Structures are given as C-alpha cells and as structure tokens.
C-alpha cells in the first residue's frame, strides 16, 4: 500500500487522536505549571444608611474581580513552577507525619489517601478477579452444553452494566437496612453500620469490582479452555496425574498468556478506579486518584474550578500509568519482532 493511500485511510483517525488526546496531554502538562486567575482590584465603597437628621456613612474596602469593557472578568496567567504540585502533594505535612510515625497524619492528606486506596484496591482485586474468573470458566466448561448459553448470558450482565449503576445496585443492597445488611446482621447477631467507616466501604467496593470484572476474565478463559490440547490431557491421565496436577501443569500453563492479558487490562482499569467512589458516595471516607482530579475539576462553592491543581494531580496519576505500561509495551514489541 502506498503511503498516500495509507495516510488517506488512517488520516481521520490520527487527526482525531492528535486533536483530542495528544493535544489535551500537552495542554495539561502546560497547565500544571501555570495558574490562571481573575485579576482583583480593591475599591473604596461608601455605604450610607439613612438615619435621623443625618445619614450615617461608612467607607469600606472591597475586593472584586476586574472587568473589561465588555463586562467580562479579566484573567491573568502566571508561571508558578512546581507550586501546583506542592499544593497537591503537601510534602511538608507528609514529612512531618512520616517523622511522627503518624499513619493517620499521612491519611489526612488527600493525595496520599487517594494513592493508598488506589494501590491497595488494584493489588487486592487482581488475584481475586483472576482466581474467580478461572473458577467460573472451569465450572462453565464443566457444565452441560445446554445450560452454557443461559449461564453466559447471566454472567455478561454484571460486566455490561453501567459502572455507576452497578455500584449503586450493590450500594442499595447494603444501604441502611438493605437486604444484605439485614442478612449479615442476622447471621452475626449484631448491629452493623457498613457506611460509617472506611474499611467496610472499601470491602464493598472491592466486592463490586470483582463482581463486575470476573465475568470478563471468565469468558476469556473459557474461550482459552476450548483450545486446550486434549492429547496432552490424556497422556497426563495415562502418566497418572490427578485432576489438580492436570489443572496446574497443563491447563494453567496453556492459559498463561490469557491470564497475563487479563491481569494487565485489569491493572490498567483498576488504577483508574472512579465510578465506585460516585456509586458508593464514599468521598467522605475513601477517594481514588482519578476521583481527586475529578473533584478539582468540578466547580467548588464559589464556582471556581482549580484547573492547575487538577492538571498537577493528573500528571502525578500518569506516573503510575507509565510504570504499568512498560511490561505491556515490552510484550507488544516482542510480538512485533517475532512476527517480522
């Protein structure tokens, strides 16, 4: 294919990606070092209140945004260097807390709190998703042919549901005297308040995430199970391998590329955890890195979006993405080398 034809085919897609992905990245990078603020001016205002005989007047100094001739607020952009990063990281408070060995001190800073939850969430759900996915795939593969279709249909539901709605539906099962809270209370014979502390909320979020992603893993592993070499399974039986050994020595190694694929996709997606915080309304207790950026971007009570702080926290989030990407890119590169 000539370069010109290739460019004509690929051009529109590349243009969109450059305009809406590459350009915002550069713009975020720039914004993280600059702050745009409205200019303020101080004016003297004389307030007079009518009184008996004379009116009482007092002057006070007010600050208000400066307006240009069209009545728009004048803004100015200043280069602030690493100030936005400092505002997000709050290193001084962090080091004081580290020196005092105060874990709660570290956890009172939003960024470190979000980082702690994001990493823990990612690492805890990973083995659960792979394990449950494998187990579900094995039992589906074990079931009668006739019921596999309906079972896969049911399994797809948690995967396909809107993440916010999925988190909400789990939330409603537990909220207040929700049905599962009632069940747990009856079983443990004690009163539970699942939304009153961070760790129970985190458990529910992890439960939701495993419920949401395990079907994806299961379907991919199930497809992989169809291509297991039956001959090697039979020779293993002749050699006297029991079921567990066959699973461990033949089936799992056969599925290994798929397990790595699922693990990488899962790492990337859970590192971006966000919808759980919205669905469980957990921002008072638990927040994630992406939610932190989102929070900076939503207007506060005064209607101001802290764009530069959001950009700084976004850039910090990207460091983790870069680390996660290295093995994936290495693998793709190796595959590419292998095929050419």
């Amino acid at each position, binding site marked *: *294919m000539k370069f010109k034809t*290739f460019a*004509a*085919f*690929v051009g529109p*897609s590349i243009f*969109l*990606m450059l*305009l*809406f*992905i*590459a350009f*915002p*990245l550069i*713009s*975020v990078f720039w914004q993280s070092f600059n702050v*745009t603020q409205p200019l303020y001016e101080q004016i003297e205002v004389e307030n007079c209140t009518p009184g008996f005989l004379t009116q009482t007047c007092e002057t006070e100094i007010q600050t208000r945004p400066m307006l240009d001739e069209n009545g728009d607020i004048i803004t100015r952009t200043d280069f602030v260097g690493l100030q936005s990063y400092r505002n997000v990281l709050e290193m001084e408070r962090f080091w004081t807390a580290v020196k005092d060995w105060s874990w709660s001190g570290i956890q009172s800073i939003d960024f470190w709190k979000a980082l702690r939850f994001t990493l823990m969430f990612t690492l805890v759900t990973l083995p659960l998703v792979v394990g449950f996915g494998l*187990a579900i795939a094995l039992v589906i593969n*074990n*079931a009668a042919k006739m019921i596999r279709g309906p*079972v896969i*249909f049911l*399994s*797809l*539901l*948690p995967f*396909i*549901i*809107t*993440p916010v*709605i*999925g988190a909400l*539906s789990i939330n409603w099962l537990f909220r207040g005297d929700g*049905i599962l809270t*009632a069940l747990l209370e009856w079983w443990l014979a004690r009163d539970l308040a699942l939304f009153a502390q961070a760790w129970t909320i985190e458990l529910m979020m992890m439960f939701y995430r495993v*419920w949401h992603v395990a079907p*994806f893993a299961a379907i*991919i592993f199930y*497809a992989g199970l169809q291509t297991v070499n039956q001959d090697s*399974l039979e020779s293993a*039986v002749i050699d006297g391998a029991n079921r567990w050994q066959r699973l461990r020595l033949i089936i799992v190694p056969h599925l290994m*590329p798929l397990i790595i694929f699922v693990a990488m996709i899962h790492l*990337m997606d859970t590192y*971006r955890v*966000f919808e759980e915080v919205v669905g469980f*309304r957990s921002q008072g207790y638990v927040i994630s890195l*992406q939610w932190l*950026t*989102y929070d*900076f*971007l*939503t207007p506060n009570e005064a209607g101001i*979006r802290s*764009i530069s702080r959001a950009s700084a926290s*976004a850039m910090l*989030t990207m460091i983790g*993405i870069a680390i996660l*990407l290295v093995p994936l890119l290495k*693998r*793709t590169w190796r595959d590419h080398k292998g095929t050419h």
Partner: protein
Amino acid sequence: MTAKALRQPAPLRILSNTFLAFWCLIAAFPIFWITVMSFKSPVDAFDSNPLNVIFGPATRADGSGWSVVDIVLGLAVVYFTARLSARHLPRLVERYSPKGWTVLGWIVAALLVGVGFVVVFFGALPVVTGVLNPLLGPLGRDVIGATTEHYQTVWVDRGFSNNFKNSLIVTAGVVTVSLTVGTLAGYGLARSGSTLAFWILIIALIFRSLPHSVLVAGYLPVFINSAEWLSPILGENAPTLYGKPAAVIAVLVAINQPFTIWMLRSFFSNIPADLDEAARVDGCSHFKAFRLVIMPVMWPGVITTGLFSFLLAYNDFLVTSLLLDASNQTMVPAIAGMFNRETTTTDQVVAVAAAVSITAPLFLLVMVFQRQIVSGLTAGAVKG
C-alpha cells in the same frame, strides 16, 4: 482413551454445579433485586424482610398490585418480545434492510421493538387487565403489591425522557462517527504492515491507558473559553464548546478510537488479503476495492466493535458529567445528581426506578447480541 477415565466423580460434579448455581445467583441478584424494588412503595422497597420486598404488602394495601391475570399476561408479553427479538428479528432485518445498510436496519428494528414493547406493556395491557380482572373473581384479585408510579415520576415529572433523548443523541453520534473513522483506519493498518503502522498502534495503546480525567482536565479550560479563541476564525457566532453534545461526541469518539482501531484491525487481518488483491488486479483503486469487496464482508466485525463503542458512550459518567451542563445532561450523570439530592425514601425508590430504566436497554442488548459480545471479547484477547 475412553471417556470413562476422564469422567468426574459425583462429588466433584456436584461441587462444580453448586458453584455454578451460586455464581449465577450472585451475577443476577443485584440487578433482579433493584428491579423488584423499583415496583414497590418505599416502605416495602427498603423492608429488611425479603419476603415483604417481593410481595409488597404495604404497596398492596395502597391499592396497587398485580393479580394472577396481570402476571400471566405480563410474562406472556415479555416472553413473546424476547422470542421475537431472539428468533425472528435477525431474519426480518436481513430480509427488509437494503443491502449494505444492515446496521441501520438493526437500529430501526431495535427502536421499533422498544417502542412496541412500551406501548403494549404500559399502554394496552392495563386496559385489557382492567376489563378482565373484575370478571375473573379470585384470579383477578391482587396477589403481589406493585406499582409503576416511580417510573411515571422519573420519566414524566423529573424529565428523564429529556436525559434519555440526550443519551440517544450522544451514543448514536459516537457509534456512527467512531465506526466510520475507525473502519477506514483499521483497514489501512491491517493491510499496511509498515513500521509506521506498528508505531501508530503502539501510541494508540498508550492513549488507551490514559485516565479520562487527565484528558478532561485538558479540554475543560479550552472548551469553556472556546468562544474567545475561535472568534478570529469563525467571527461573531463562535460557539462555546462547553455543554455542546457535538463536542462531547467528538471527545468520546477520540477516546474510543484506540480501542476501535485495534479491534477492527484484528477483524480485517482475518479477512484474506487475496480478496482485495484480486479486485486490485481487476483494476480497482484501494478505495474502490474497499467499497466493493471488503464492505460486504466486514459487518460482523463492525457490529461487534459498534456494540463496544455503544457501551463506552452509554456508560460514560466522567466525561459527560464534566463537559455537559444541566440542560443537556445524559442519563447516567443525571441519576447521580438524583441520588445525591435524595432526602426521603421515596426519592431513593425513584432513583432505583431510574437505574432500572438505564439498565433495561443493556439487558436487551445482551439478549440480542450475546454471541457478538462474546466473540468481541475473545477476539481482542486471542490477538493480544
């Protein structure tokens, strides 16, 4: 080797099937339960006794409920809709849609079935049962308390139909544009095999992994001030991109591109290159070969990719909630606003009804396109 040696002992089979049943229960239960809750009065919906939630005594006491006749007729309508869409719909679409416009045929068919179902289920059925119930005595008496008033509140009073319309605009736009752009790019990448194509794919992979909040942080200030910096080009009518569905469509298409081109490339790689080479030998240009030879055989891959584009646009919360303002909000951010504001339990049940309304189209989607979704998931994985 006989099958006997591989046959599993009974305890293992029982264990395996128990686990399977347990998984099915976990997978379906939350969705089933919120559906049940959405039809009950607040007292029943948040009752701690599950039987009260299912049978809804308080709802029945309020005078709204379903009799045996209602349930039988309702289930019949649901069953025939499901049967129609699973069995006959694909054939009807194949027959009546013009050649090369199968996708459009599917959209029209899905809309027709959806509207038909709503009309029959909520419009015609109450009239029929209203006549039948008094005639049939005990069969016509309410056994399960249920009410559709929360759906009425959501769709009519809270203006959810407006949000639905916005969701429809955004998803339709995203699916059409991203498939058009992505199909061309996927084909080009599959047939090129140059180093440049490889690097484009690698960069797309990096782009796919970016958190969406990072990108939105880049758009927001630019979109809010767009009237200012677009005015030298467009003059007085330069639009403010913030709050425009078209801008959100462009953003979601771009975010979706990396995934779309990877997926479509793998589908096009499976179409033998001999096909278009033969057409080229006969004197077609690349574009003509694409139009005449590739387009007729590419629809399975395009439909599968389209499903995933649909899901991305339909399920998105972050981008739409930050880039659209309240007047043209889509459904998912709207419901988040709804449950954040809620104060009474009635508001909560209304939010539950909204959640079920959002989930229902997805449920139908899985029902009709189960095979395509599974093939899409595995195609991505097997190719890496």
